[in-house]
């Protein structure tokens, strides 16, 4: 690296105090440098301390944490030795931050321009007209549509990808030397992610700014970072240039991270496929939507004429971007959002469209697992209670039977039995998702509707959950309806795939032939948008501009 690093971190330790008065170390002695103009990625699973380190570069720690040792130098300033007043002088002008959720970072009641130029007003950098002119230049550099007028809109009037680029403009307006990106594309669709990544990359290259890019997605990081720091448990596992980490990972954890990326081809269901057998789930001409019902039709129509069959023991994947209606499909099948027209046949028997009219036994056979395990588990109930309820509700077990079965279920999802006394808030993301799955298994279902269950998880954890799903399928003869926006996930677990776009199924084909045989334009766009583990992928990616224009509202 160059002689004088922009950022130099030495022996950084960050600690917190628990409610029992015990001190824990979150970051255990981290050293690294960032050269001017260099983009360094911090990669690791959740809880590895990557965001904590990134925030500490601004001298900020989350409530309850504090920097307990080491030094952080930014240019000539020693951030660790400064008082809070001096640090806030640096924020926005020397170092700035792009948050994970732009939607949560913007004030919904102020116009975008007002918020973007706020930094220049706080630090009195330049008069307002000049700041607005600069903001418009940044909007142009970030490839935003209507750069002249987009600033007059309110945050809800632009799309998620645009908002994320606007939050980058907000961070760049003070000409910082260092920009911290905290998982800025994790919440975006793959097709949107490309645009945002491109914009970030070009604007950082032009400005010659240094960046810290926090992510758990190696493929994304490979497109934008010069160097990668791999973290686990608050310690640095490996540091290297991006190419070196991808080609020759030295540390076992890095190798594991890379291995989780290789799509494991799904073996077709072993069970003999008999065409005369009744499908476990058959959907005929399903229409569903939300809002007040008029003339038997809801105001906001989402699903339009969806048809498919799912054979017993096989898995069906549903892909599409957010807003394509894939979650609504799962909810309509489960009866949570009653369909207003169409038929749902379960094992050949027609089901009531609303769950209120279905029998307990029919409800038991099809269980749904939700995307966000954080909100799908009641934070006030212990794991034992959460898993015990379906056992009592569907099977009428007494408390001793329940306890034995809960331990069995925890074992099924590879969790220790002692976990049953904890609250959901005390588990990691992967553990919570396993509990979420165990609750569905407690009902002894035949079909599990999985709504984006791996999307909020880290790659390694998600791969483990997928392995678990496959194993459970072999043992319990389950069928999955697997909803995801991640193609490699769907490829690794499903036999057949439905591609959804704006509430309609645009294509249905076997998963193994998806990348080769997809013929519909939208399917092809979706497939080509999945980031590859290759540093040159984004630069070399050529998408048909007409296709992009036709299928995205950017």
């Amino acid at each position, binding site marked *: 690296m160059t002689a004088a690093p922009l950022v130099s971190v030495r022996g950084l330790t960050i600690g917190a105090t*628990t*409610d*029992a008065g*015990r001190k824990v170390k979150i970051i255990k002695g981290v050293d690294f440098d960032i050269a001017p103009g260099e983009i360094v990625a911090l990669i690791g699973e959740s809880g590895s301390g990557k965001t904590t380190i990134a925030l500490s570069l601004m001298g900020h720690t989350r409530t309850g944490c504090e920097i307990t040792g080491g030094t952080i130098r930014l240019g000539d300033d020693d951030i660790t030795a400064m008082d809070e007043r001096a640090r806030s002088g640096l924020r926005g002008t020397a170092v700035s931050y792009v948050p994970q959720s732009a939607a949560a970072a913007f004030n919904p009641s102020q116009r975008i321009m007002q918020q973007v130029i706020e930094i220049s007003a706080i630090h009195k950098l330049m008069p307002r007209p000049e700041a607005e002119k600069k903001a418009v230049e940044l909007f142009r550099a970030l490839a935003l549509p209507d750069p002249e007028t987009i600033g007059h809109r309110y945050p809800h009037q632009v799309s998620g990808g645009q908002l994320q680029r606007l939050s980058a403009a907000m961070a760049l307006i003070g000409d910082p030397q260092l920009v911290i990106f905290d998982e800025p594309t994790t919440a975006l669709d793959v097709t949107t992610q490309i645009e945002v990544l491109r914009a970030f990359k070009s604007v950082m290259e032009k400005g010659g700014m240094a960046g810290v890019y926090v992510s758990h997605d190696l493929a994304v990081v490979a497109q934008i970072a010069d160097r990668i720091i791999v973290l686990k448990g608050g310690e640095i596992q490996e540091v290297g240039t991006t190419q070196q980490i991808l080609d020759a990972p030295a540390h076992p954890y890095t190798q594991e991270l890379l291995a989780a990326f290789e799509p494991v081809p799904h073996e077709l269901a072993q069970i003999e496929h008999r065409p005369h057998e009744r499908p476990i789930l058959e959907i005929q001409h399903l229409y569903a939507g939300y809002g007040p019902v008029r003339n038997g039709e809801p105001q906001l129509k989402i699903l339009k004429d969806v048809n498919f069959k799912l054979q017993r023991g096989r898995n069906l994947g549903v892909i599409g971007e957010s807003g394509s209606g894939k979650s609504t499909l799962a909810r309509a099948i*489960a*009866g*949570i959002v009653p369909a207003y027209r169409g038929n749902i046949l379960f094992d050949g028997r027609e089901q009531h469209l609303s*769950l209120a009219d*279905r029998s*307990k036994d029919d*409800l038991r056979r099809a*269980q*749904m697992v*939700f995307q*966000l395990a954080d*909100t*799908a*588990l*009641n*934070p*006030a*109930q212990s794991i034992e209670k959460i898993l015990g*309820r*379906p056992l009592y*509700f*569907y099977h009428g077990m007494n408390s001793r039977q329940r306890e034995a079965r809960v331990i069995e279920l925890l074992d099924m999802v590879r969790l220790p039995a002692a976990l049953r006394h*904890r*609250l959901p*808030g*005390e588990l990691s993301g992967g553990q919570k998702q396993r509990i979420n799955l165990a*609750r569905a298994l407690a*009902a002894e279902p035949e079909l599990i509707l999985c709504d984006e269950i791996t999307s909020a998880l880290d790659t390694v954890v998600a791969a483990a959950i997928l392995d678990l799903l496959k194993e459970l399928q072999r043992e319990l003869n389950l069928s999955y309806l697997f909803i995801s926006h991640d193609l490699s996930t769907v490829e690794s677990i499903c036999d057949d795939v439905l591609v959804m776009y704006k509430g309609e199924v645009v294509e249905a084909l076997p998963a193994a032939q998806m990348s080769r045989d997809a013929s519909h334009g939208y399917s092809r766009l979706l497939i080509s948008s999945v980031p590859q583990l290759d540093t040159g992928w984004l630069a070399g990616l050529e998408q048909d501009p007409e296709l992009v224009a036709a299928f995205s509202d950017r």
Partner: protein
Amino acid sequence: MSEKSLSLRLPTPRNLGYSFNWVGRIGLMIILFWGAVAIFGPWLTPYPVGEIVDWDYFGPMSDKFWMGTDYLGRDILSRIIMGARYTVGISLASVTLACTGGVILGMVAAVAGGWFDTGLSRLLDAFNGIPSLLFGLVVVAAVGSSIPVLVLTLAAIYLPGSYRFARALAVNVNTMDFVTVARARGERTPYLILQEIFPNILGPVLADLGLRFVFIVLVLSGLSFLGLGVQPPNADWGALVRENIEGLSLGAPAVVFPSIAIASLTISVNMFIDNLPTKIRDRSE
């Protein structure tokens, strides 16, 4: 096994796995103190509550009358001790009724939604529009003043507010995925409100209960002032303040001590509710 080893140690909050800070402990101690005074009042009073025992009015603190005497020359200490029964008892009973009713209705309305929610909300809103003292006046004038009537009237005045508050909280929890999971499982309303929603709104509901308790103490004294509350010669603390208000210009302890009693009770209730014991979840010690 762990239970056995626990019984050998002192049952302090920490040994039972709870952390309970000093502010909360002080609050609880004051509440327990007033509770004890309310229960054992008749055995504690130095003088009968309605008897004029001093020739002077608004007498100062003395060996004979620890908290001075009131506008008729009655002993204030005795009157505060007996007043604790009315203030603590009536307020506690009505706040319990108001919050239990309001929270249950609020949760049911949030879960049921539709016309039930709309109908109940409008009805209670309309009820909320009636001025509380006026309502009390009408009820007491119609059926006469007695302690059950006071308790029910105060509960009725504060139920709509509690309902609104609980409903607003429950509506938020009701949209969470775990409630959807329970619905998809086929659970009925009683399970949904008691097991899924109630534990998640408990904190704010308790804080609301503390505030409402304070308001009820104040409205009760307002009613007493109008002669509709506790009937003389008995008096609750609010009534003691009102009847001795002229002593304020004389610096009489007769008006200061009932005020201190009200303040200590209401503040300690809030101190306790804001600092309830919390279970220590960090078990890796």
